[in-house]
C-alpha cells in the first residue's frame, strides 16, 4: 500500500538557520507533491506545489526539491524566523492526475529566537 513518511519528531533550530524537512514515499509515482503549513487549531495552508518533472521550486525563503528516483522531497526554509514555527505537511496525489491526495503526518518545526 502507499505510504508517506515525515519526521515524526519535532525539529528545533536556531533563528537564522536553514530548516530542512523530509518527505519520503513508497509505492507511488505521484505527478504532484505539495507542501502545506498548519498552525495549531487551524486548517492547513498551501505553500508550494512541485511537479514530477521539476527538480526544484522556490518561493521567497522556501525551496522544495523532488527526487522521483529516491522517492523523496525536501522542504527548506532559509533564514528561518520564530514565525515559521508550525507543522509542515507534504501531500501527494494518490493516483496520477486525479484530485485525490493523501497527506503525511507532518513535522513540527520550532524556530528558537
Amino acid at each position, binding site marked *: 500500500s502507499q505510504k508517506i513518511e515525515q519526521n515524526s519528531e519535532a525539529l528545533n533550530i536556531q533563528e537564522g538557520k536553514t530548516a530542512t524537512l523530509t518527505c519520503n514515499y513508497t509505492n507511488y509515482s505521484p*505527478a504532484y507533491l505539495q507542501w*502545506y503549513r498548519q498552525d495549531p487549531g487551524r486548517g492547513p495552508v498551501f505553500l508550494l506545489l512541485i511537479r514530477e518533472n521539476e527538480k526544484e521550486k522556490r518561493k521567497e525563503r522556501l525551496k522544495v526539491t523532488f527526487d522521483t528516483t529516491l522517492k523523496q522531497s525536501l522542504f527548506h526554509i532559509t533564514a528561518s524566523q520564530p514565525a515559521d514555527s508550525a507543522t509542515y505537511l507534504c501531500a501527494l496525489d494518490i493516483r496520477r492526475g486525479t484530485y485525490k491526495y493523501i497527506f503525511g503526518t507532518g513535522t513540527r518545526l520550532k524556530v528558537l529566537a
Partner: protein
Amino acid sequence: GAGVSQSPSNKVTEKGKDVELRCDPISGHTALYWYRQRLGQGLEFLIYFQGNSAPDKSGLPSDRFSAERTGESVSTLTIQRTQQEDSAVYLCASSSGPGGTQYFGPGTRLLVL
C-alpha cells in the same frame, strides 16, 4: 464567501447521538474533500467528491460515516451513533483541478462525551 467555510466550529455531543457537519466550498471548485485529524495526528482522508462522479468513499472508517454533496456546492458529513473515538477535528477542503491547491476550512472540532 472567499474561502471554505465549515459549521459548526465546535460540537459537543453525547455518545450514541448523530451529528451533521457542513462544508461550503469555494464557488466553482469541483473537488471537495473531508479529512479527520485526531489530536496531534496527521490528516486522515475520509471521502472526496469530484464533479458529478461517484464519490471516493474509501477512507470512511465505518458505515456510521456518510457524506453527501449537492451538485458542486455544499457537503454534509454525517456520523451516526457517535463514539468517543470519533472525537477529532473534521476538515473540509476544496480544489479546482488535478494537482491544484487544496483550500481548507477552519474545521469542526467534535467532542463525543
